[in-house]
């Protein structure tokens, strides 16, 4: 974890296969999707929040792509949960892509599947 907390942004983008979904490239704030980095942990939580902030009021359905995700912790999941919940409270939706391998097991452990709108929660 020590190495992760110290990893530089440059290194992060090398590790995560795609930092942004293709549609997002070069179009800040005007986008409807976000690809999560390989590492989504406390150390990266600030930048994750910044990225999500750009999407919170997006009128279109927002897609979160977790296919590159390898490590996630409670801090990141908590952010995502608040994001999804607030979108929903505002009557907007969030869709998931590639959430099954890393995100879902973690969310299930924390009892967060429903809050995140993931399958595997209470249906």
């Amino acid at each position, binding site marked *: *974890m*020590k*190495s*992760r*907390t*110290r990893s530089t942004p440059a290194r992060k983008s090398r590790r995560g296969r795609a930092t942004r979904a293709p549609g997002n490239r070069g179009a800040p704030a005007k986008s409807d999707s976000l690809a999560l980095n390989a590492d989504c942990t*406390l*150390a990266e*939580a*600030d930048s*994750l*929040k910044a990225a*999500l*902030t750009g999407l*919170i009021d997006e009128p279109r359905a927002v897609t979160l792509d977790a296919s590159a995700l390898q490590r*996630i*912790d*409670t*801090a990141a*999941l*908590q*952010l995502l*949960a*608040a*994001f999804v*919940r*607030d979108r*929903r*409270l505002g009557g907007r939706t969030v869709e998931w892509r590639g959430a099954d391998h890393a995100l879902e*097991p*973690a969310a*299930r*452990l*924390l*009892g*967060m*599947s*429903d*809050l995140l*709108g993931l399958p595997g*929660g*209470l249906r």
Partner: protein
Amino acid sequence: MTVDLTQFHDAFFEESFEALDSMEAALLKLDIGAPDRELINTIFRVAHSIKGGSATFGFSDIASFTHSLETLLDELRSGGMAVTVAVSDLLLKSVDVMRAMLRAVQAKQPIDAQRVSDLQFDLEVAIARKNETVASPPAQAGTPAPAQGAPAVPGRWQIRFRPFRELMARGNDPLRMLRELAELAELHVRLDAQDLPPFAHISPQDCHLAWTLEIPGDVPEEAIRQVFEWAEGDCELTIARSGVDDDAVTPVPSAESPASPPAVAEPVAAPATVTAHPRSEGAAKPEATVSALGDSGSIRVSVEKIDELMNTVGELVITQAMLGQLGTQVEGPHGERLRAGLAQLERNMRELQESVMRVRMLPISFVFSRFPRMVRDLAQRLGKQIELKLTGEQTELDKTVLEKIGDPLVHLVRNSIDHGIEAPDVRTAAGKPAAGTVHLDATHRGGNISVEVSDDGGGLDRGRILAKARSRGLIGANDQLSDAEIHELIFLPGFSTAEKTTDVSGRGVGMDVVRRNVKELGGKIEVASESGHGSRFTITLPLTLAIVDGQSVAVGTETYIVPLISIVESMQLKTSQATRLSGQGEVFSFRGDYVPIIRMHELFGVEPRTSALHEGLVVVAEGDGRRVGLFVDDLLGQQQVVIKSLEANYGHIDGISGATILGDGSVALILDVPGLIRVASMRAAA
């Protein structure tokens, strides 16, 4: 905000090493075939907490290894595997490997990966063999089992886990903890997200969530607590057993209903009264809320802080001595009161000094505890039966002394086992029990501590020692030596009677090194031996290295301190008692021996008050088994002096072990008698 976890590393390493020590001790107590459950739990807890800690800090090699170990221990705990000699050996080896890994990580050195993976493989093989017949508990990380409907286990643990905000910033991750719980048994998780603020107001490093967890009642409470061990003080934790497996609680893995967003703001409605009264829930056995400080009764303080305190107390002692001296010069009624006050101050100072010294004291069990393992391994390797007896383990001594006494003791114990204790058949033939006894004992004697290593083996072999000494040319072919003189021989450099160099003895570290180490601590070592009945080595050490009882002596205008421990007696000589031998300088007759006289003023180049023997005094001092007469002008008084290192502040000087500051503010040098004898004899020879 980035959390630098490295600040917690020291504590982690320190705790882990201690934990490994206790794990080793528990392993050694483990009875093959009929293991004590509590001991296995202790061992399991250690592995588990090291695993958790190393995972937190990202020491993945250690975490992975301890995971395998833990799986094996879990098998032992559940009775799926029996404790055999092979398993016990495997576990002891694991302790060594974990220790080595922790040391490597601590020193930022590479881990010996081959050794680790070999042993890990062995562990896994051992587990796999047993698993062929015994079903393993659910273990796979990341696949807990929510919402499957609770099995009808009578009694379940209800765990209320409410992290404080800073929990995550302190390096704890609830996800990791819940994953560990899920590895113990089927875990039901219910999230309480009612405190989760609107997205825009979230501070990403703060934890705004809380959980109610349920786990089957057959999981030991200790194992659950262990998971939360690192979070202690950073969360509110209630663990309670609910007697009835109430139907309401069962299959609700998650609280909120996605269909009705406002429900988020409500405490979970139906099941089991969770949010409101965490402490009163749980029918059968409510547990106290764990929080704040962890173990009461002791705190961890860095050695530097204590040394600083010790140093300040040392300065205070000097100031007090100075005031004391001034006080004697004050006259009149105020003088009386001043002196009464000063006497009080002196008493308090002594108490303070003793208290601070006690802080640095640790029980010698810290050193003794490594012996059971060592003796067991050695006995196995040498095919001997050894019983180790430890007494006086609670005897306390200074940490510095403690650290340096370990190696000499190891050497002595090794010697006892290798050379002292005979093979079982030899012992039975001699009418002794087949198992030899090695006894380690520590006691306080006056201002000193004495540590004894004794055995009931064959004793020192006079004949072999003499033969060896003759072959080495250390003594003449026809020299007749007393027992004491023969015992002295074993302390000579390069002397070892081991016929072949084994990896047990004879690694070039001989008794001479043992004696030197003990000397460096200001102590001495003595031998007693009875042929056929065993030998006894006694090490006498000062309780502390920071303060010495000294006799101050005057030479000209200078004051020197002679450590009391090296003084035999002080006397006035008549000029006629001293004779000058050609080539050997001055000697005088002392109890049948001729003792050389060292004229201190000549040695140190000081202008003396007198150079006539009968006008001054001779202090007979002993060092390295030799006696000398130190010729000084006068004796001044006895006092405890605080040693200030010369080497640290100036440089090493032969014959001087340190310096101290006297009551009048002047500096006095503390004499190192053995060194002084060396210097003097070199001068005499030159």
